[in-house]
């Protein structure tokens, strides 16, 4: 940072790369987002407020944010375990195991949704096991969380894995020679280092979950007030040619997500500083 802010930067090509970055960001992110704003013709502040406080919209936001947060949290724990196994141990088929982590990225989300519903609905392989216990997985918030976990898991694994890989084994050995237990070592030595990437992974999985549409519409059952997610509400408004209404919900979703992500990011930065 110091080098580049002096009059003549040490690294070459700032002008060019900055130009490309601005161009790319404009074409792919900023212009489409401002088009979203411009599309809101006929959207007055009053109407925006009406839409924002509509009980059905609020309910869908609750479903979206809660399931996304739950899925993100579970993914954070499971993702840490997965990354731990991948980094610390050798076992046959590890390469395949490692590559499999990324599969949810490649699979069209609708396919994932249909497959998950087939398995977890009350006559599916796994769903039929839970049915006698009175637990409905598909067509309930549990199903939504499950779909979002599937979508989000690679984010956590792929952010934690490199950090875990870079950790010095010597520090752990030192802790051990000083008489720390395995758990104590993990808690005081490893965990502080792993917290920032875990938070990043959580934030990514969470953000992905909020916007997820394809996999969730199949498994959620889409019942208004109960299992209807915010993205479906946006689609439903578009289907009725209600651009202004759809824009309002979309904007609201973006705004809340942005604030939440900003919070998580600043948290993560603080942890990183204290960890060092």
């Amino acid at each position, binding site marked *: 940072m110091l080098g580049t802010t002096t009059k003549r930067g040490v690294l070459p090509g700032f002008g060019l790369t900055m130009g490309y970055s601005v161009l790319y960001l404009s074409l792919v992110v900023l212009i489409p987002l401002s088009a979203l704003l411009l599309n809101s013709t006929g959207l007055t502040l009053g109407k925006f407020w009406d839409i924002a406080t509509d009980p059905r919209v609020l309910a869908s936001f609750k479903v979206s944010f809660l399931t996304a947060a739950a899925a993100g949290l579970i993914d954070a724990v499971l993702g840490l375990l997965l990354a731990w196994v991948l980094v610390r141990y050798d076992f046959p088929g590890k390469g395949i195991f490692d590559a499999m982590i990324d599969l949810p990225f490649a699979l069209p989300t609708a396919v994932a949704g249909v497959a998950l519903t087939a398995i977890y609905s009350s006559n599916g392989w796994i769903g039929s096991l839970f049915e006698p216990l009175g637990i409905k997985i598909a067509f309930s918030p549990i199903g939504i969380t499950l779909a979002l976990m599937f979508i989000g898991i690679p984010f956590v694994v792929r952010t934690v894995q490199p950090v875990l890989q870079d950790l010095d084994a010597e520090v752990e050995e030192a802790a051990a020679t000083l008489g720390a237990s395995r758990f104590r070592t993990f808690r005081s030595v490893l965990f502080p280092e792993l917290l920032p990437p875990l938070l990043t992974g959580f934030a990514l999985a969470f953000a992905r979950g909020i916007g997820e549409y394809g996999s969730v*519409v199949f498994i959620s059952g889409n019942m208004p007030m109960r299992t209807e997610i915010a993205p479906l509400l946006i689609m439903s408004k578009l289907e009725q040619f209600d651009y202004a209404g759809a824009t309002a919900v979309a904007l609201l979703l973006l705004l809340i997500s942005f604030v939440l992500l900003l919070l998580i990011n600043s948290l993560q930065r603080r942890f990183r500083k204290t960890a060092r």
Partner: protein
Amino acid sequence: MKKVLKQGVLLSLVLAMSMVVGACGNEKKNDAANAAPNTTGSGEKLKDIEILNVSYDPTRELYEKYNKAFAEHWLKEKGQKVTIKQSHGGSGKQGRAVIDGLEADVVTLALGYDIDAIQQSGLINEGWQKKNDLNSSPYTSTIVFLVRKGNPKGIKDWNDLIKDGVEVITPNPQTSGGARWNYLAAWGYALHQNNNDEEKAKEFVKELYKHVPVLDSGARGATTTFVERGLGDVLLAWENEAWLSVKELGPDKFDIIYPSESILAEPPVAVVDKVVDKRGTREVSEAYLKYLYSEEGQTIAAENYYRPTLESVKTKFADQFPDIKLFTIDEFGGWSEAQPKHFSDGGIFTQIYAPK
């Protein structure tokens, strides 16, 4: 530092501009190429022509067959080779794609409401629905019940759907065009049963949707839920979808039940005026829609389980389409009235789900 940044921004702007200009240039060239065959074609042997039919999901098989038949007919009649491209998807989505610039010569959608929306954007002239016979609906359909083989719950009519323990599968009317027909069919039945008392009809529909365990986002999704997941006792379905399910999955699994009355679903067709005038495809596009009313067009529709409107074909397929009492959307003031009243925010459907 600042100077460098400025240069960067400037460069990106220049790049963006050049891309936009480049894209425009290309489009112009394409237009010229498209227009050429029609202006030079008079008198001489006509050049090949291509039109795009933007339709909704369940008509895929229908138009695959019909397009072949029409191309042959047109070649015989005019000596011109016509290629018809198809586009399928949810009806509302397809309508929006046309509004947003998908160059459809003709649209054949599930609801008049979707074509009305295209008209409001200025692409289709007013009065499109009067341009062809029968409200521009060459074939019709209706809403029927698909039940499990042997009809274990004894479902015969609409009021059986709100019996205790009956689960009904129907998609969400706010995301699915087909589901709006389902809803209005139930609404119409309840109105007729209660001397047009709207409050009672509302009660009935509210009760009906309490029996719906899952609201899928589209008609095909609902069919999957009912057929593959084994959820629910009765599926409210398009007549053609019901027949298709029975044909594909075996008549040993499902029965089709015809209620005492249902709605006459009229999926309309229209020429997209702005596009055909620009591309010079008006003549062939209008003929394409007209031919749907012909003996051959009607037979293809009937073979794909759509109700034909031509008497001669109707009698030929009488077995397949039992006569039941059918009421139309006009009874509810057409889509322009029914849509906001029932399905827009604050409409009756959204009130059903209002928190207690």
